């Protein structure tokens, strides 16, 4: 039997070679699967070859997510997708960007429109429109979705995502308070007559010192639209009088427009006069609910977000509050609620493009969206299409205006230049100064300054973009 001498030198050679190979392998870019050519319908991979997709979870509902994930897994199993499994991780948006820079993001990305559009502009997402147009079945499902939901994920004519949790703002009220104060309900006034002036009049009439103490303490002159974000009512008021946050192409900020300053003045007056309803509050138990539940008057809520689940779980059963809701009042430009949403997109460098496309196509179907709607209590959400809204959403939570909640809604404000969430901080600081009265400069001056800064941030962030 021959023996092989293995000297230290040989050992070092082998070890060096192996280490080098490992380093090279680790650094190598994985080759993504070839995308189907435009015009070629998207087909699921053969059932015999199981595929595992990765996806980041919805980090805004970590407690609820395991149940939702189990539901989706079951749904895939029952819908001919036995070959497809999805592994969820907890990567948040910031980490996702870092992972994208390293070419290592999950196959399916949980996104909001304000992230999807900047990411699409930076070529991190797979455009879907060509594939959809080539597949009649898929196209039909896409067309069944609420237009503003799709618009939220559309950039330069290409759709980049599917909505899995829709939101549109409205204001809720306690009918008993209206009766007590002898104030006509918005539904009695009529939709068209319920404008900004009427809204101010009603909030004034409903003001009740005795009930002005939510959560056992006096609010410090609450406000609506406190952070200028679409989640707090400001956007609806702004859109109602024809204003916008950004220009059509998303390159210019319009925060010092006549309409913007007018909206801020309207909100400021409500607050100053003590008529304003607060936006969303956090209860002692750490649960979301709208202030309407606490002060029994009325408040901004995000229909489709936590309020629904909370209202349904608690107040409907206790009969303390009926979540009748009314539209955001219309201004001269009509009612245009902001349709904010959360959705899913495909990462451009996925190694499983065919499977991801098959999953994405399925996500637009009524069946998938129905499953989404059933999770409203765990992770409240409105589906991307009305026909998938279950009876609870249709009859119990949205009795007044189903399916009109999203009528004439506009996609939430986005810009391809920058992550909108990144600038909300100083927008909020500015609005806080305006509403709390600490910034006493003329509103035009304040918003000129805000606009200049926002534009500067947008220009800097988008400097490398060729758009």
């Amino acid at each position: 039997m021959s023996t092989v001498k293995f000297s230290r030198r040989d050992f070092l050679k082998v070890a060096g070679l192996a280490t080098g190979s490992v380093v090279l392998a680790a650094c190598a870019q994985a080759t993504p699967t070839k995308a189907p050519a435009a015009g070629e319908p998207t087909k699921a991979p053969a059932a015999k070859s199981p595929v595992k997709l990765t996806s980041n979870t919805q980090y805004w509902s970590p407690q609820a997510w395991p149940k939702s994930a189990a539901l989706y897994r079951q749904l895939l199993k029952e819908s001919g997708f036995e070959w497809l499994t999805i592994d969820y991780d907890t990567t948040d948006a910031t980490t996702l960007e870092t992972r994208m820079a390293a070419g290592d993001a999950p196959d399916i990305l949980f996104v909001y429109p304000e992230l999807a559009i900047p990411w699409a502009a930076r070529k991190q997402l797979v455009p879907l429109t060509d594939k959809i147009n080539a597949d009649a079945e898929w196209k039909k499902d896409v067309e069944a979705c609420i237009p503003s939901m799709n618009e939220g994920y559309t950039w330069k004519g290409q759709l980049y995502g599917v909505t899995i949790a829709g939101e549109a703002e409205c204001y809720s009220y306690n009918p008993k308070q209206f009766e007590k104060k002898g104030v006509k309900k918005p539904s009695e006034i009529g939709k068209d007559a319920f404008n900004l002036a009427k809204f101010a009049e009603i909030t004034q009439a409903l003001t009740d010192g005795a009930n002005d103490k939510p959560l056992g303490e006096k609010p410090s002159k609450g406000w609506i639209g406190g952070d200028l974000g679409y989640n707090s009512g400001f956007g609806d008021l702004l859109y109602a009088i024809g204003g916008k946050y950004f220009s059509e192409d998303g390159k210019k900020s319009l925060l010092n427009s006549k309409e913007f300053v007018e909206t801020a003045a309207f909100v400021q007056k409500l607050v100053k006069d003590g008529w304003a309803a607060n936006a969303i509050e956090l209860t002692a138990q750490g649960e979301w609910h709208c202030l309407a539940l606490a002060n029994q008057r009325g408040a901004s809520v995000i229909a489709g977000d936590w309020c629904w689940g909370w209202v349904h779980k608690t107040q409907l059963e206790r009969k303390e509050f009926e979540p009748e809701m009314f539209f955001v009042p219309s201004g001269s430009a009509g009612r245009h609620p902001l349709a904010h949403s959360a959705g899913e997109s495909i990462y451009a460098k996925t190694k499983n493009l065919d499977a991801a496309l098959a999953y994405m196509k399925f996500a637009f179907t009524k069946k998938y969206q129905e499953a989404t709607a059933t999770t409203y209590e765990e992770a409240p959400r409105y589906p991307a299409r009305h026909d998938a809204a279950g009876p609870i959403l249709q009859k119990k939570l949205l009795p007044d205006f189903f399916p009109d909640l999203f009528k004439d809604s506009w996609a939430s404000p986005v810009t391809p230049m920058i992550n909108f969430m990144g600038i909300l901080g100083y927008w909020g600081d500015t609005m806080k100064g305006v509403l709390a009265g600490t910034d006493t400069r003329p509103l035009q001056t304040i918003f000129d300054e805000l606009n200049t800064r926002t534009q500067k941030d947008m220009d800097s962030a988008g400097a490398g973009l060729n758009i």
Partner: protein
Amino acid sequence: MGVSAPSVAKPYDRMVGVRHRERMRQVRGLLFSSPFWLGFLAFTAFPMLASVYLSLTHYSGLEAPVFRGLGNYVDLLDDPAVVRAFRNTVIYAVLSIPLNALLGLLVAILLNQKARGLSVWRSIYYLPAIVPSVAYALLWKWMLNKEYGVINFMLGLVKIPPVNWLGDEKYLLIAYVMAGLWTVGGAMIINLAGLQSIPTELYDAAKVDGAGKFALFKAVTLPMMSPVLFYNVIMGIVGAMQSFAFFFVLTQGWGNVSYSELGTVYMVHLWRVGFQLFRMGYAAAMAWVLFFIILALTLLVFRISGRWVYYESEWITGGGR
């Protein structure tokens, strides 16, 4: 039978052999130390050099950088958000560093006494210092919660209304300092080691000279501890200026100032600029400016340390700077 002469290598060959062995020894040394220097090059030197370049560019992180010279540094001088974040950080540092040093010394002196269960007390004071910053930030987040935090509960017992510690920038810095003191155990353990290394002869000699407790502290303990305190101050400056995880976790969540800039510290703002605003180049410039500020502060402290830091060895050998 002839005896063959032993092979004697020529001097040249011997020299070549020695050189070869020496070279191989060096190669082996390099290979065995390669985990360190490869790691250093890949994960420290390269990122540092890359960040110098990136600080001179527009770079979003997702597309190629665009060179813009010193533009980011010029913009920094005129950025109110950066100035505010820096001001908040400095206020935090000015409040927390002396408090930490003082409290660290006091606790160390207390724990240097002869008492029962001393090791248990030392462990109790030191434990928070080794809790990961994210964990203790989460703990303080609960304690400082406006509605159900234990601090407001205790204030309520003495009829003080609840304070919105994490939702109102007026109180935020106080909350930072208060929570930061929780890790005073780190300074305490270093001070304790310093206290125990002070020769007892010095105390004995001072007592013979009639020194009281305060004089002992002033004339012996403090001078002998000054190098340790100096070290704590330097580390405190670096730590306070670079703090991120603690502030970041503490302020996250609705109802808190997570999105607001008013109570933001420098590193959290740097993160926001880089990772939320797609301005990695600008964030890199911010990081380098912070580096030079910390360097300048450290040099300043070193420069003035001659007036208050006492090195026994220098006195003995007659050394000095």
